[in-house]
């Protein structure tokens, strides 16, 4: 064989990894151009980030960054990472470079937006945590269901049901009563979903959509017809933030993690508990076996149906708790469709987090960060409409879900009903 065809071969035999590395490189270089020529050129003065309030026991000084130089350095770093991808990209460097690159981009953006002004970083991190809670709990509910191979599109409806019940029962019986009721109602919807898809083998997506529409219709009706008339039914107490002694005084992480309300602590504890449960206990192993290979689990005497009922109901209870955040954890009253798609974002967080509770929490924090950033940007008056920033996490989700950065593997039997022979 001559040399020429061999060369065409090596060209046509393009591997997926090499292609990924090249695309990542191109993206990073495009970002570096953006940072250098838009953020860098446009930045003047210093960006001041406040880390503590002056009243805090251990106050940190403000972080002052010269905006222009910072962004030139950031742009150069991005360019270096991008070029590196072309020269010796591939493998785990691709995902890592992209992650680091995006983090640099966010920092550069913040510095640019804050240039010449001051901005409370700690306040934003605290808000990030708060906004991540319903998403993380929705994602956790999704993890519990999908680990036993039931796709739960109804998380949105379960959140909404939890929010509604929390407001109604909370108004009548007080905060704790409302919370317990929200969890029970969420669990009830989980049980209904399980009955529809496990026992009656209804299509899981359709069953979920049906529950979502039912909850949306019912709660909207009651809130517009009943709550508007009898306002005392929609006036629940709110769980206030509780500062954990000492830890709450730590700078930056204190306000973020230890000066929050019940829902933040609850979400963190639930994530830790379910991680232990799923990956370190006997029941967790069995649950995952049901999600991966239900027939194998069945031959080993594991009751597939009961496992699915249990976990989907548990997932519903977690979602009900997350739903109560909207009312009992923040405003104390219910508004029509007040969850606004957080349940679906929770599902995205579950996929982003690769069906792992900690991953779902991390992804929820990313979404929560974008959410709170969007709020704060309105204050800083940047030329970019904040709506565009609010879109960015979803673009990231699409990229992740489409399998660009390695393929996220769902449980093998996900979405498939199990028919016992």
């Amino acid at each position: 064989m001559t040399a020429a065809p061999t060369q065409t071969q090596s060209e046509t035999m393009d591997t997926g990894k090499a292609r990924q590395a090249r695309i990542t490189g191109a993206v990073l270089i495009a970002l570096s151009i953006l940072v250098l020529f838009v953020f860098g050129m446009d930045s003047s003065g210093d960006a001041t980030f406040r880390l503590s309030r002056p009243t805090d026991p251990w106050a940190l000084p403000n972080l002052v960054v010269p905006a222009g130089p910072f962004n030139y350095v950031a742009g150069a770093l991005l360019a270096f990472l991008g070029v590196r991808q072309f020269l010796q990209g591939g493998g785990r460097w691709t995902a890592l470079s992209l992650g680091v690159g995006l983090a640099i981009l966010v920092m550069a953006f913040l510095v640019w937006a804050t240039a010449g002004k001051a901005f409370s970083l700690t306040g934003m991190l605290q808000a990030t945590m708060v906004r991540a809670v319903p998403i993380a709990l929705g994602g956790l509910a999704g993890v519990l269901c999908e680990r036993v191979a039931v796709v739960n599109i109804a998380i949105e409806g379960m959140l909404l049901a939890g929010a509604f019940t929390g407001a109604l029962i909370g108004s009548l019986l007080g905060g704790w009563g409302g919370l317990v009721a929200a969890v029970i109602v969420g669990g009830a919807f989980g049980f209904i979903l399980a009955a529809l898809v496990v026992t009656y083998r209804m299509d899981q997506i359709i069953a979920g959509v049906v529950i979502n529409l039912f909850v949306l219709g019912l709660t909207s009706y009651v809130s517009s017809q009943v709550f508007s008339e009898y306002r005392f039914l929609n006036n629940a107490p709110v769980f206030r933030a509780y500062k954990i002694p000492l830890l709450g005084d730590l700078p930056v992480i204190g306000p973020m993690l230890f000066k929050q309300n019940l829902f933040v602590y609850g979400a963190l504890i639930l994530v830790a508990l379910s991680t232990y449960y799923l990956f370190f206990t006997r029941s967790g192993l069995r649950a995952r076996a049901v999600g991966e290979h239900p027939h194998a689990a069945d031959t080993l005497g594991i009751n597939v149906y009961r496992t699915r009922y249990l976990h989907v109901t548990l997932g519903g209870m977690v979602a009900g708790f997350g739903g109560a955040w909207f009312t009992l954890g923040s405003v104390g009253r219910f508004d029509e469709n007040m969850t606004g798609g957080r349940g679906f974002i929770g599902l995205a967080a579950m996929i982003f987090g690769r069906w792992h509770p900690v991953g779902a929490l991390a992804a929820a924090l990313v979404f929560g960060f974008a959410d709170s950033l969007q709020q704060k940007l309105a204050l800083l008056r940047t030329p970019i409409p904040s709506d565009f920033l609010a879109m960015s996490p979803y673009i990231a989700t699409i990229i992740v879900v489409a399998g660009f950065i390695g393929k996220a593997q769902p449980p093998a039997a996900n979405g498939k009903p199990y028919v016992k022979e």
Partner: protein
Amino acid sequence: MDVELRGITKRFGPVVANDAINLHIRAGEVLGLLGENGAGKSTMMNILSGLYTPDEGEILIDGKSVTFEDPGDGIAAGIGMVHQHFMLVPVFTVAENVVLGVEPTGRFDYLDLKTARKQVREINDRYGLEVDPDALIESLPVGIQQRVEILKVLFRSADVIILDEPTAVLTPQEVEDFFEIVRSLRDAGKAIVFITHKLHEILEISDRISVLRHGRITGEGDPAKLTTETLAEMMVGRPVSFTVDKAAPKAGAPMLTVSDLCLLDEHDDFALDHVSLQVRSGEVVGIAGVQGNGQTELVEALTGLTRPATGTILFDGQDVTRSSVRERHRMGMAHVPEDRLRSGMIASFSVAENMVLNSYYDPTYGRGLEIDWPKAQTTAARYCIDFDVRTPSVFLPAGHLSGGNQQKMVVARELERETKLVIASQPTRGLDVGSIEYIHERLIEARDEGDGVLIVSSELDEIMGLSDRILVMFEGRIVAEFDATNGPVDRNAVGLAMAGASE
């Protein structure tokens, strides 16, 4: 432990899967259970393991009557089953799979994997299984996965071990290793039930043989006194010839020439690694190999279902590397896919609709936007007669036919055209002996009419019986070639090549 089945009957609707079966399983003995697909072997074993409950009859363990209501009961009674399709969770480790359902635990339901690993190692050592407890199942070859299944059964301290078609996925050499394990289990006092439809295997490993046909025990005996011929007659109900009658091939011009074909899988490894081969008109080329060594990918590339990364495919003198499936089809390429239910037919469509799946667009049937159904039905009826597809009507959904008739329907559709090349993948998988004979005859007939025939099969007997030339695939490469025109090929040599030993 002794297990006795007395008058076991199991019905599925009108079908009697097991009809008054009596069977005795003794400790320290290998009982061979022979029968074709659909004879009721698996039903019987599922009853024995507690997955099904019998409609009539009783199960006696050491003389005492027992009833099993769910799979846990069978396990608890000491009966363990190794299923034909492995019941392993691919993303779990060996240890996790072995202990699943009977896990050692600490406080707070803590899964004690350390103890699990230790226990797995102990069983490993006692029976010489040599499996790494920390390996992920999906990273293990099937031969080792099977040992994990046996580990699972032993871990539950089963005394009766049922092996359902255990050799279907193994190379001849792996079968030898596997038989060693079976013998060591028997010598350790376990009762083994070995279910298969392979005659020479059952003669080699069994201490006693029972034959099952149409849900009934039709013969029993001592393997020393039985031959493959007598066993086959018991199994099928009539004398069977195992050699395919065929004349010497009259190989002509090259019909299919494949050079340097490469295909990458999702991990960027070679699914096909520089495959080159040729099929001439008037010859049968058989591709042997253990499942999953690139055969599926090769057939998909040849028929146009996937596009290769490199290489060329010449069909009847034309370069078809980038041609669509339909173009290849129209040029006279016939494809019998490996999984008829997945890609050979549409189960909910009628026989007639399935018969015109590859030609409905042809002007013969197409009238503008309409299809000439009466014509299609007439054609389908004729095909059914020609290819012995036994169906009460061409309007019956194809899913209601037996596996043999479904496959004959697919073969009829593919061969009842002007063909030049027939690519048949696992053409007789899961079929009864009668259907196998019939399909083999038809493939030889296609060869004698001047077609090139490429057969891919994991059944070595099928490859040996049909092929004029045998190619062996291993890890995406053609690793050996054997000429079968001058006398039979050395079975052992082919087996070694299948295991990748020839390099």
